[in-house]
């Protein structure tokens, strides 16, 4: 379990993070969303033991991360612009990591490079941005980390590659109970792999939620009636948002799916659809007041 308690970090007097609290369960994929400059990268570097917080605790399995070698051996951090030693080939870089990380697996390394068709003896810096990112992924996964920290990992990957990478990541989470901490400025990009989401805004986590719980709880309904909408129904349901498009009503409703559906059908609507919500919509509707802020972040 990864925990951050009351963490504060500033750069030359300018606060980057203030009072951040965060919990990540083992084996989960935690998505960190935030606009540019919200402090995502700072938070990740703190978690990777690169930066040192001014206040608060950052622990993995109860132990502080900073300068803790046995912990850092199980953590792998890929920065938003993956860096490799100048003139190093993938093979040389792999040898370097093999020397540094105790759990490095050659077997896995060759399997992955095969799958992705990577040339081992090419200088990494001569590869395209996407390939460089892929190399970073392969190196990271080959060192068999228990925690993988990814800063804007999918930037620069084409959709096919993106899918492949996501699959490999999910596979690792399933097989080895790897924990992934992933950041993005785009909720849509990571909503299909995350099971937890936190939103970072101006240096603080404003929301932290489990996705399934959210998804199971909130629904988008389209209904139309010959006559007026029955008042009784409106009173019975927990409605977060109403919108009228012609004769069709769009409702965002909180509650169990079966019950909501049953209640609506009882009023005999002409049209009735129960639609899945995107994560973005859930956040915006669910969070009411701060929804406005979130809306801005998502843009």
């Amino acid at each position, binding site marked *: 379990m990864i925990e951050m308690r009351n963490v504060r970090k500033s750069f030359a007097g300018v606060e980057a993070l203030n009072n951040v609290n965060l919990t990540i369960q083992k084996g989960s994929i935690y998505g960190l969303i935030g606009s540019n400059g919200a402090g995502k990268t700072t938070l990740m570097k703190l978690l990777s033991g690169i930066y040192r917080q001014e206040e608060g605790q950052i622990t993995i399995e109860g132990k502080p991360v900073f300068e803790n070698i046995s912990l850092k051996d199980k953590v792998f951090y890929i920065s938003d612009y993956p860096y490799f030693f100048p003139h190093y080939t993938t093979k040389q870089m792999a040898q370097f990591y093999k020397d540094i*990380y105790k759990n490095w697996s050659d077997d896995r390394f060759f399997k992955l490079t095969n799958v992705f068709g990577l040339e081992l003896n090419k200088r990494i810096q001569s590869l395209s941005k996407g390939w460089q990112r892929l190399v970073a992924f392969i190196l990271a996964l080959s060192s068999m980390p228990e925690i993988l920290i990814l800063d804007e990992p999918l930037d620069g990957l084409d959709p096919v590659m993106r899918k492949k990478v996501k699959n490999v990541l999910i596979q690792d989470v399933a097989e080895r109970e790897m924990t992934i901490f992933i950041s993005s400025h785009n909720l849509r990009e990571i909503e299909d792999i995350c099971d937890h989401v936190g939103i970072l805004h101006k240096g603080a986590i404003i929301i932290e939620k489990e996705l399934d719980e959210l998804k199971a709880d909130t629904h988008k309904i389209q209904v139309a009636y010959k006559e007026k909408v029955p008042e009784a129904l409106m009173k019975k349901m927990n409605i977060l948002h109403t919108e009228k498009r012609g004769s069709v009503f769009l409702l965002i409703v909180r509650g169990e799916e079966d019950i909501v559906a049953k209640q609506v059908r009882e009023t005999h609507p002409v049209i009735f659809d129960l639609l899945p919500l995107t994560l973005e919509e859930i956040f915006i509707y669910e969070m009411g007041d701060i929804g406005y802020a979130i809306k801005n972040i998502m843009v």
Partner: protein
Amino acid sequence: MPSKISWFSKEIILQIGRSTGWISLVYILGLVFALPLRILMIYSDEKNRTNLNVGGNLFRFDFTIQVVLFITVPILLSVFLFRYLHVKQATDLVHSLPLKRNKLYHHYALSGVFFLVLPIVLITVSVLIIYASLHLQTYFGVRDIFYWAGTAILATVCLYTAGIFIAMMTGISAVHAVLTYIFLIFPVGITLLVVYNLKILLYGFPSDYYLRGNLDKMSPLTEVIGLEGKPFDWSNVLVFSILTILLYGLSLIFYKKRNLEAASEPIAFVKLRSIFKYGVTFCTMLLGGAYFSETLYNLGWSIFGYVAGAVMGYFVAEMVLQKTWRVFRHIKGLVIYTVIMILFAIGFQTLGIYENHIPKQDEIKSVLLTDNPSNEVIQDHFYKNYYAPKPIREQDNIKSVLKLHEQILADKQINQKNKSTPYKMAFFVYELKNGQKVIREYQLNQKLYDDFYKPIYESTEYKEKTEGIFRVRDKDVETIAIGNYGPVGKRAIIPEPSEIKTILAMLKKDVLARTYEDGVYFKGGSETVEINLGKNNQLSLELLPTYTNTRGWLKEKGFLERATITENDINYILVHRNNNPNGKTIIDENQPGNLKITDKEHIREALANAGPNPGSYEAIFYFEQGNTQQAFFFDEDHAPDFIRDHFKK
């Protein structure tokens, strides 16, 4: 896999080698040219093979190449090695790895030491091979080779650790290199600046006295630059070793304290930033003030120098810190700084305790008065024995010195203004009965103080304490040479001990009888007495025209005609009124009003009264021999009557 827990990480070393190995390679190449190749080249030139004789100091082979390598390679290496702290992405990568900073530090720092030492070792081995195969024992020894190797290793490693230390302080590689050199030269620079400025601010501050010590001892960089000239002794070894260990340890401590986001910040520690900013402001202020005071001697310009220096330094420091040149709105710090400095300067001026402090007569044990403070510096044994003036103790003389000193203090305004006129130093060292010393130094126009100098300089005690002739023992003298170093050289050597004894006695008598005015007027003449004390040591003193006892005896013995210019050597003399008080003019022979002296008796009289220093009349002496001439001067007091009469008309 236990090997992975081991301290030593092969891959890190490999990475360091791949990225910085080239520096070592360049270093080796450079040294190959400077030593093994140079030795072979000199050896192959049979005629000049003795050039291999470098006095046991191998630094003398192509020292320029060597010294450039020694002072650049270690710094360059530290810059490239610790670039991983200055490039953001590299920092993030390296520090996300499961490696403690401790381990990273030792790996990088010690690899650097290895890369510095390896070339020296290889060169040493190659020189040893050449030495053995060419039998170079006649030129230098194996000991000398190891002296070279040891010194080079210690010196470069020391400079290198200074580089590491600065690497921890900054986050930009360019700043790293520049700051390292500033750091290395800082002790010398700040001493010079502070002393120069105290001299400007405090009337009488003995700057030359404080700068007399070996300034190059204060910086490892200047020590390395001096390796060609002087030996690197055990005290150097000690200082360099301590410094190296200290900097190595401190660097690690600062590395651990360092926040990694400092990469790309010019100064890594927030607390150091103000120190840097105001430190730079202060130093450039001192520099500006010193520069304008030294070149223009004008209070207005000096103040301009201080202000300009401070403003420039402040904004430059600010530009470095902010990494932009648009910093001219940030003047709050400068304003505060200026206020503090003004208060400081006022405090300095009103205190005045230092300037006006002269010890009381009854506190003084002895006093040394000289116009040459560097006397204290010269370590040469012979010089110390014969030339260095010694302090005087007689109450009357001390009283005279105090009177002079008081007058100098009273003339503060005049003396500080008139720095551009020909000036002399007045250097006072009082030794008090309580063991303390009071040291002051002034620049003044000695002419204004003739009345004060006269009783001191004419006193027997002062002459005995300052003139080398009174320290000569008859039996130490091998020969005495009397000579003239004018355009017509003449020289007579007297080897006879009994005659030597007589001359010495006569000289002492004449020196004691010399008046202050004659001493000043005739100073710098070309007739000298050289007392040869053996082992190439000689004491020389001027043979003034007023030394009648000596001259009389020399004439009697026939030496005078052989050793000095007499009327017989002179064809004629041309005299004109000298309108240029500071120097010599060219005489136009045909200019009306000039006086031409051809009468031998007049020439003799002119010779006996002519001085070498510019005065009212300039006289060109035309020699019989060759087409040579020499310029002399007369002042009103010394000009013979027939000259004065001529120009009176």
